[in-house]
């Protein structure tokens, strides 16, 4: 009996609880605890470079507002520094809509992750139906078996990166995070328009965009490409899987180009399984396909709405000031993960240990836990706390308190705090100690001090009661008294 493939449902898929993707979801909310011991400030400090293109000579004499390049550089830099990486990370306009199931609206629902969005849109696309294919029982069974094998293989190959959803309406579906790693790193460039749009000098708008600033930064890990597929029962004999591709950092055009390529891959070998090949191609060749060989150019145009381009291409159109820190944060997290799992040499003791046994300082130098502990304990014991710096010979970065807290026991840490306070006060030349209660006070220009604790007003030279108008004792007298040991003095 021919089985109709209309079980590829209209709306059937949408019912029932939506499966939560069990793969490690990339948290779109970048405010999360930094897993590693960096005492550094949160994402506000960017480590990229602001490149200013050479000022173009073409600005005509009638240019109305001559913007100083310097001022605009600092304005843009400022904008980047005050990054608001808050929960409203989704740059798409947030509409409060009732949680429709197979909703085909263009924007992300409130609180929806990229993964959920990708799945939802795919289901919407599936809901549009298409040509129905009549299958023989044999074909159907063969397809079913091949699909099962392919899913099995995907699970084995991608492990935690792939999520296999429950079969709905007889259709298999999955979602895979394809991580792209560039071992030597790659530069990413983002064009920043200043002002509401590009500047217009006279009537000529520079197509090259050279009035824009280019922000450049380097990453080794890119946010993953999300490929979501639904396998119809006519796959692979007659039809390819339905898919969506979602990439945080690419624009619609780029992703559409990728979609085209997937179509081509299917066309070249119709009837064969293609899901693994798609995943493989996306992971290894998508960058070069888009021309991102030596560097990646992040698109700055967010003009494309959801009607242009391929419907299967899901872009997020985040503005540079949201996207760039996200990408950098992702890169840092992945690099740190890689660090933790690899074996490294401690440059102090030369032992080889896994990354988890290391302490990483804010300056990115790292040493093994034992060495850092010995080092810090020794300096605290000896009192040379000013020397509690990064052991690297040229670095000089201070070991931050949170790391010390980890390395030292309570009373050692207290001792450190006390010593540091003492050293700091000593280094301040206008700090004197009250002759009566030893509290630290500030000295003013007339060599007078007032103790905030016991309210004693004293002369800092002779350390006696304040004597306005009267001459203080002469240096010789003071020396005499000191030698005899009469007065206490610092």
């Amino acid at each position, binding site marked *: 009996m021919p089985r109709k493939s209309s079980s590829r449902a209209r709306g059937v898929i949408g019912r029932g609880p939506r499966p939560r993707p069990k793969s490690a979801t990339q948290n779109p909310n970048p405010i999360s605890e930094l897993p590693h011991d960096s005492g550094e400030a949160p994402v506000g400090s960017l480590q990229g470079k602001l490149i200013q293109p050479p000022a173009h000579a073409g600005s005509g004499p009638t240019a109305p507002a001559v913007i100083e390049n310097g001022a605009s550089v600092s304005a843009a830099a400022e904008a980047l520094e005050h990054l608001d990486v808050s929960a409203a990370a989704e740059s798409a306009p947030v509409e409060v809509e009732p949680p429709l199931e197979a909703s085909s609206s263009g924007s992300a629902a409130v609180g929806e992750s990229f993964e959920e969005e990708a799945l939802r849109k795919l289901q919407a696309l599936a809901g549009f139906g298409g040509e129905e294919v009549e299958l023989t029982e044999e074909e159907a069974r063969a397809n079913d078996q091949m699909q099962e094998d392919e899913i099995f293989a995907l699970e084995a190959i991608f492990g935690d990166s792939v999520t296999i959803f429950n079969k709905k309406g007889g259709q298999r579906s999955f979602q895979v995070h394809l991580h792209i790693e560039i071992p030597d790193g790659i530069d990413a460039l983002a064009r920043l328009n200043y002002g509401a749009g590009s500047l217009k000098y006279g009537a000529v708008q520079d197509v090259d965009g050279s009035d824009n600033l280019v922000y450049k930064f380097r990453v080794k890990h890119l946010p993953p490409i999300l490929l979501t597929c639904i396998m119809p029962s006519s796959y692979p004999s007659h039809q390819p899987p339905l898919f969506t591709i979602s990439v945080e950092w690419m624009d619609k055009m780029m992703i559409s180009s990728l979609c085209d390529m997937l179509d081509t891959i299917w066309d070249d070998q119709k009837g064969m399984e293609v899901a693994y090949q798609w995943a493989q191609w996306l992971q290894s060749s998508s960058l070069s396909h888009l021309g991102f060989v030596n560097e990646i150019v992040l698109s700055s145009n967010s003009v494309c709405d959801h009607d242009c381009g391929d419907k299967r291409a899901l872009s997020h159109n985040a503005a540079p000031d949201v996207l760039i820190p996200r990408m950098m944060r992702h890169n840092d997290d992945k690099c740190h993960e890689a660090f933790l799992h690899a074996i490294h040499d401690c*440059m102090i003791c*030369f032992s080889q240990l896994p990354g988890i046994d290391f302490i990483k300082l804010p300056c990115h130098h790292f040493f093994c836990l034992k*060495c850092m502990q010995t080092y810090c304990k020794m300096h605290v014991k000896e009192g040379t706390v000013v020397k509690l710096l990064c*052991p690297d010979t040229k670095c000089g970065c201070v070991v931050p308190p949170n790391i010390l807290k980890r390395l030292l026991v309570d009373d050692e840490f207290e001792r450190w705090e006390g010593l540091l306070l003492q050293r700091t006060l000593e280094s301040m030349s206008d700090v004197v100690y009250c002759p009566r209660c030893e509290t630290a006070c500030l000295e003013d220009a007339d060599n007078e001090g007032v103790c905030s604790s016991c309210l004693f007003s004293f002369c800092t030279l002779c350390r006696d009661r304040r004597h306005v108008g009267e001459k203080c004792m002469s240096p010789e007298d003071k020396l005499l008294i000191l030698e005899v040991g009469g007065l206490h003095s610092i």
Partner: protein
Amino acid sequence: MSSPSKRREMDLMKLMMSDYKVEMVNDGMQEFFVEFRGPTESIYQGGVWRIRVELPDAYPYKSPSIGFINKIYHPNVDEMSGSVCLDVINQTWSPMFDLVNVFEVFLPQLLLYPNPSDPLNGEAAALMMRDRSAYEQKVKEYCEKYAKPEDAGVTPEEKSSDEEPSEDEDDSGDEAILGNPDP
């Protein structure tokens, strides 16, 4: 202390590999002698000294102690005992420094730029501040009298791969004693 011996071994090995003539005192890797030449383009040029290095227990967290066996005229070196002022070493010491650093960087720096604020040889410090040329003269005198290659005779532990063409010692060189100090 985390595997102190591995670090010591490595450092000692590196020092020997950098063509320094090293003489061990015993197998303990605590103490040894090194032949050190005055840095070129300094007033100590041409002088050869036998240096005694002692690695404390807390090495590399604490700096090694350095002592000049034959005499040297320098504000930061005690004339009688030859010890180099420890504070001066400690100020710049870091656990990442190794023995090669001491001989390639630290000692040459010290000889080129004495630190008069912390003198072990007060007379030398004063002379340096007062009359630079007289100071330099005296340094050279001492080099002539006390820092000849014979005065710093060191028997090499390992044969260095390339012999130094300059005034090398009478002993050394050919009678290479091949032996590994560490098990």
